């Protein structure tokens, strides 16, 4: 079977990944801000008995190697990995997109231009004379709409056709100097004059919205309000649905207990299933509604085009931290999950900025910490639960700002990257994109519940039921207690001097949700029976202040293993990763100690 290697290349946010997904059926993340794709991705599919290998490259503005992304793409082209390069062009922003196109054509590589977003162009009443444009550029141009899947066959057929006639060229990537760039843009404006009709601006929609959302005075308050609403919805609506899930789970747990007892399963196995697995994993599943709503809100923010505006609005505040407004995007993503957030720091140009942003990301409460807040705020703060849970987010942000300001003061050599960010047009969030995004997150969450949390629950059950003397009746004599008690003296000054809490904090390193799962198991609470947990905790002197301290400590202490591994991967530095871990533990301890000691006074 013949094979054909295609590479999708183009400006950021021009729809490469949408096109890649359309062809390959992959579910790679797409959103409406520049820089979503940070790694090259490869997939294959069969087309008319030809095996097509496609590579989706991160978006770039030029081949001049200013950023990591540009270096990746440039290297990819220079090595001649692709038979044909498909330059995806945002037709609604043709003029700027043609610069990269000219550079690509110049390399000598076979290039096809895929003129994407033709639907938007048509809607705007713009007309592009494709034939004339082809004449001017000397390459094939295929109008497509990746979103509506139109023109995809034509594009693929053209690629195959060209692959038969195309001879291998000498690929040479040239770095443009100022003169070259000016020359190219001169030529482009001439092309635009001749090939584009009615280029009158009709994007009034975006300008109108921007007049409010990035307004000098109300822009920042609106951003804060939007984020507050996101978290408020997460807690209120999420909790509302959660209550019903809890009822369902309790019914299920009782049913299982009844069946296991009836078919004569031994008490040890019954205990493992009911007290270990259902209590641990099931308890976590009840938080799914909160998670869904949080990610739904983030998806809407990302797909609407607002995300890039956040970088612009927050530039002033980030400047005080010695960072560019762009560092704000990974931090917002951090409210969802720290792993993609750490990876998203690649959009920052300097390694130093990346590391400083990674230091701040764990302070953004990720979705895994949400169950901890929901549970403990709900148990100990009654009708103020939502405010307490929301305040965790605020505390995280305040701590992040403080760290940012201090590290900036300490380091005199910080050269702040100056903000240059493309602001895409607003659009109504695409239903399919949002559904896939949320679906992907739900899948991840369930997988986590089924793997890490499942295994952690079993291990925990084992650690609590087996001790130095063998099988133990009382958890006080278990290995868990032995380990936990070692840490009690350290945790006492921060109000968490209970061996059970110590064990749950250790187990929380695997994933933060495990803290909640393990507390249920540790205190022998039946599935998500929060009233019972409250009674038990109260009886050992664990009160609202202790709960607050637990939440704050969980907010700030070491992120989960997956995040630490990502930090290690991204920075390629063991030293930095270890420093980060030590720093987070110390930070969490100090902040919690201060709060506990002051409020306990």
């Amino acid at each position: 079977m013949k094979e054909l290697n295609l590479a999708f290349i183009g400006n950021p946010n021009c729809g490469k990944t949408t096109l890649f997904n359309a062809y390959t059926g992959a579910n790679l993340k797409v959103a409406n801000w520049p820089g979503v794709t940070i790694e090259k991705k490869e997939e294959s599919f069969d087309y008319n008995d030809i095996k097509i290998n496609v590579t989706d490259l991160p978006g770039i503005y030029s081949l001049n190697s200013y950023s990591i992304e540009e270096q990746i793409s440039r290297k990819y082209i220079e090595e001649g990995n692709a038979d044909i390069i498909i330059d995806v062009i945002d037709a609604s922003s043709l003029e700027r997109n043609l610069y990269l196109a000219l550079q690509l054509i110049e390399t000598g590589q076979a290039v096809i231009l895929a003129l994407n977003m033709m639907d938007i162009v048509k809607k705007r009443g713009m007309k592009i004379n494709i034939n004339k444009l082809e004449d001017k550029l000397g390459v094939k141009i295929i109008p497509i709409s990746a979103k509506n899947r139109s023109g995809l066959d034509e594009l693929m057929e053209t690629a195959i056709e060209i692959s038969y006639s195309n001879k291998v060229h000498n690929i040479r990537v040239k770095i443009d100097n100022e003169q070259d760039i000016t020359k190219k843009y001169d030529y482009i404006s001439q092309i635009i004059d001749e090939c584009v009709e009615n280029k009158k601006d009709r994007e009034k929609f975006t300008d109108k919205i921007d007049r409010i959302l990035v307004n000098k005075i109300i822009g920042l308050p609106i951003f804060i309000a939007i984020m507050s609403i996101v978290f408020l919805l997460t807690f209120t609506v999420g909790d509302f649905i959660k209550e019903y899930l809890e009822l369902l789970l309790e019914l299920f747990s009782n049913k299982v207990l009844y069946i296991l007892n009836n078919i004569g399963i031994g008490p040890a196995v019954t205990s493992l299933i009911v007290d270990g697995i259902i209590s641990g994993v099931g308890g976590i599943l009840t938080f799914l509604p909160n998670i869904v709503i949080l990610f739904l809100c983030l998806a809407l923010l990302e797909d609407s085009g607002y995300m890039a505006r956040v970088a612009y609005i927050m530039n002033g505040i980030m400047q005080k931290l010695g960072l560019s407004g762009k560092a704000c995007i990974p931090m917002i993503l951090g409210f969802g999950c720290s792993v993609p957030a750490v990876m998203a720091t690649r959009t920052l140009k300097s390694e130093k900025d990346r590391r400083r942003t990674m230091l701040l990301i764990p302070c953004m409460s990720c979705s895994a910490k949400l169950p901890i807040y929901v549970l403990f705020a709900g148990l100990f703060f009654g009708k103020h639960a939502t405010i307490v849970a929301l305040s965790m987010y605020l505390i995280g942000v305040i701590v992040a700002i403080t760290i940012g300001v201090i590290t900036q003061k300490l380091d005199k050599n910080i050269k702040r990257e100056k903000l240059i960010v493309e602001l895409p047009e607003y659009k109504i969030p695409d239903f399919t994109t949002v559904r896939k995004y949320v679906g992907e997150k739900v899948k991840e969450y369930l997988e986590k519940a089924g793997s890490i949390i499942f295994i952690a629950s079993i291990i925990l059950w084992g650690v609590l039921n087996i001790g130095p003397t063998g099988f133990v009746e009382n958890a006080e004599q278990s290995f868990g207690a032995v380990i936990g008690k070692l840490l009690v003296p350290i945790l006492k000054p921060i109000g968490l001097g209970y061996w059970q809490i110590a064990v749950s904090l250790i187990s929380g390193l695997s994933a933060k949700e495990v803290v909640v799962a393990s507390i249920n198991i540790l205190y022998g609470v039946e599935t998500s029976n929060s009233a019972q947990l409250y009674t038990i905790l109260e009886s050992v002197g664990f009160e609202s202040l202790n709960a607050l301290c637990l939440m704050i400590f969980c907010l700030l202490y070491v992120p989960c293993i997956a995040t630490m591994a990502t930090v290690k991967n991204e920075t390629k530095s063991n030293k930095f990763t270890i420093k980060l871990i030590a720093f987070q533990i110390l930070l969490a301890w100090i902040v919690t100690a201060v709060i506990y000691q002051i409020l306990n006074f």
Partner: protein
Amino acid sequence: MRFINLSEGITNEEYIIQSINVDKATKSRLQVLGILKETKIIILNKRINGLIIKVRGTRLGLDKEISKLIKIREVRENERVKPCFYRKS
């Protein structure tokens, strides 16, 4: 013809870039986005720490520090005919 800094421009007005005096790396980044001498721009929004310009059909958010180092001039009457973009030979 009077030159002013981009940061001093007025919102919704069109201007033409006269010079870009930022550091080399930033300048290169601006250039590939089509921000070159004689390029026509419109200021869409201004904030304390930055501004949004429209250049070659795209909106860009720029740091104020950058906008202080770009010199612009007003558009002459005879240059107004061509929308979006104009370059003098």
